[in-house]
């Protein structure tokens, strides 16, 4: 046991002490933020970079030109329709001073068609700006034309957004269940499992191959059992992963607290509620509902099961990676063995995503019982509730398989770490297992 502890400690420190670990732990979340922010940044520079376009609006109806408001991007200049007979001439006369001409035809009320002319490119952004501005204005004008008193109020009264609340009959009585929140949570958990297993499985394999190629392994196994070394590695790297996760959760909590306090202050002066905040109040119902759903999820069992599946899945795949890593001389030879393993993982992830639509369907059930896919797929099903017998069967199978794989991997590992030279085939692996 003492040796195992030494090995775990060395393995742990050898990764946590590295610069790349610190970089990964701090850098990865930053990278995520960056990736999320890139479209906004790009859009910002896109808007910023281009000059304001000059758009002439020829309004033959004389009613709607005012609907187009100028902003940083477009400067709409209304031109009375009866003064222009030929749009092309008008455009040419401007001598390049115009970027486009919007023509609102006389019959727009009946056809609903508005034309934009230009020699240059007409951007989708311009088209959609014009469309959204005119649609509302024309529609409102039509309603006003009907001359029905209090029409707007009637419409507002008639308007309805159907909010579907799913209520589950459980032993605790009626519970509002939680489709959106459950889906989000399930996906998050399955993705965490998938990422963790792949990342740290690969890390274990690298560590095994490194020990083998720099020939330290023979010295180490003359001091401990190969199984102790393998297990020490798996546990050590697993602890590294948990450390990393703990740091991420801590970071998330810090960022959350800061963001929360900043937002909280900005919404404090209630006497100065802007129109926008009024509008967002309408969305509060939806947010509240999601909040209520999120709170209604029964987290205790989910966390317990998540931990169980997490350990089982990690044990299964990491020992697989350790065993396969021991069979090759250098990292570049490992792909023939890792490809099938990674493929299974990817299948598991896709099965998990596919199961979201029907978490109790046959595919979801089967994939959440088969040990190689269950750690990922069951995560998707957990928040929706899973029959106890399926859970027990699945966890039992997972751990039985994981232990079998550890045993098999240990047998491969024992032979593999001292095997140099000729390439190992799957046939050789089977011989080693026997």
């Amino acid at each position, binding site marked *: 046991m003492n*040796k195992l502890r*030494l*090995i775990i400690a*060395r393995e742990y420190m*050898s990764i946590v002490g*590295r610069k790349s670990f610190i970089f990964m732990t701090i850098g990865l979340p930053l990278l995520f933020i960056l990736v999320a922010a890139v479209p906004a940044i790009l859009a910002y520079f896109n808007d910023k970079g281009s000059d304001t376009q000059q758009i002439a609006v020829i309004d033959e109806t004389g009613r709607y030109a005012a609907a187009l408001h100028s902003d940083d991007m477009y400067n709409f200049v209304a031109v009375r329709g009866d003064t222009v007979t030929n749009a092309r001439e008008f455009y040419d006369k401007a001598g390049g001073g115009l970027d486009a001409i919007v023509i609102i035809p006389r019959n727009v009320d009946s056809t609903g068609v508005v034309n934009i002319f230009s020699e240059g490119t007409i951007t989708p952004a311009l088209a959609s700006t014009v469309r959204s501005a005119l649609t509302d204005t024309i529609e409102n004008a039509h309603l006003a034309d009907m001359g029905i008193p209090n029409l707007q109020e009637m419409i507002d009264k008639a308007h309805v957004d159907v909010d579907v609340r799913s209520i589950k009959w459980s032993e605790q009585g009626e519970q509002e269940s939680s489709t959106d929140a459950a889906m989000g949570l399930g996906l998050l958990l399955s993705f965490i499992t998938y990422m963790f297993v792949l990342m740290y499985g690969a890390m274990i394999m690298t560590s095994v191959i490194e*020990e083998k190629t*720099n*020939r*330290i*392994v*023979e*010295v*180490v*196994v*003359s*001091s*401990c*059992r*190969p199984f102790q070394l393998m297990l020490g590695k798996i546990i050590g790297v697993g602890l590294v992963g948990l450390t990393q996760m703990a740091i991420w959760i801590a970071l998330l909590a810090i960022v959350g607290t800061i963001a929360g306090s900043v937002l909280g202050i900005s919404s404090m002066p209630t006497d100065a509620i802007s129109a926008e905040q009024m509008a967002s109040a309408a969305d509060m119902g939806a947010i509240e509902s999601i909040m209520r759903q999120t709170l209604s999820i029964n987290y205790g069992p989910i966390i317990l099961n998540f931990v169980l599946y997490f350990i089982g899945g990690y044990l299964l795949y990491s020992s697989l990676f350790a065993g396969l890593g021991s069979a090759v001389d250098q990292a570049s030879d490992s792909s023939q063995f890792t490809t099938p393993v990674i493929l299974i993982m990817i299948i598991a992830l896709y099965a998990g995503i596919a199961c979201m639509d029907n978490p109790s369907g046959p595919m979801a059930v089967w994939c959440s019982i088969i040990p190689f896919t269950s750690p990922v797929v069951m995560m998707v099903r957990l928040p929706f509730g899973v029959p106890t017998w399926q859970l027990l069967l699945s966890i039992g199978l997972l751990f039985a398989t994981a232990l079998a794989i550890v045993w098999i991997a240990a047998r491969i590992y024992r032979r593999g770490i*001292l095997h*140099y030279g000729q390439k190992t085939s799957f046939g050789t692996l089977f*011989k080693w297992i026997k």
Partner: protein
Amino acid sequence: MAYLDINNVVKRYDGHTALAGVSMQVPEGCIYGLLGPNGAGKSTLIRIINRIIAADEGTVTLGGKAMTDDDITRIGYLPEERGLYKKMKVGDHIVYLGRLKGMTKADAVASMRWWLKRFDLQGWENKKVEALSKGMQQKVQFIATVIHRPPLLIFDEPFSGFDPVNAEQLKVEILALRDQGSTILFSTHNMASVEEVCQQITLLNHSQVVLSGSVDEVKQQHKKNIIAVQTPDTIEPNDALFTLLPPDPVVRDTRIMLAKGVLVRDAIAWLNDHYLLTGFTEVLPSMNEIFIETVKSQSNTLQSNE
């Protein structure tokens, strides 16, 4: 009573037999040479002694008791292909391997410092292994092998890659360890170093012991009754007593091989009567010659048997 007693050890792999009933007795406090060409089974035997792999048949006893897994703390092993964790600090690395062999942290640290000083590596304790030169890395490997003062040391080609100065220092250290009571199993191809340090040897070839005993005995067994004669005269052949051999290209003395049944003193008496002798020495074969001769003759017999 041998300290390390290997009795009829057999190891089979899928296709072939790596060890076909090998026995070897290593006395306590002795430097014992384990010799043999590549693929003879030396590494397999060493791994069995280290309990890295298990023998299919036979026993290994250490200090009179059958070996168990706990006994590996009593062995220090320097493999032929040896490496270090490149990213670890020198001191941490040595202490880690010492503690894996059962030392307490305090003991391991103290011993590590003592050895680093002895090898002039004091300044390197907190440097990473990858910053060391190859020669220094080999010293670190040696220190990691002996740090827990094991009663049995196994060195597989310890001198390979060392420059002559460092090789000499290593030899002195190995002899010192022997003098302090360690038993040393020494596997090598380098026959010159065998003659310098080994008292006894076992020669493995094709998974079997083909020769064993003390270095002196083995040399006596393989001597060919050759005498180097120092004389200013030119000796003519005398078929009844000896045949002339081509002179040694380096020493330029005259070499004769005695005919069968002729005693050294008879041949020398006759020579002394006829020539002016200034000296003579019996020429014993070098371990190198014995090694090549034994391995070659065995492969000839194997071929003729097939």
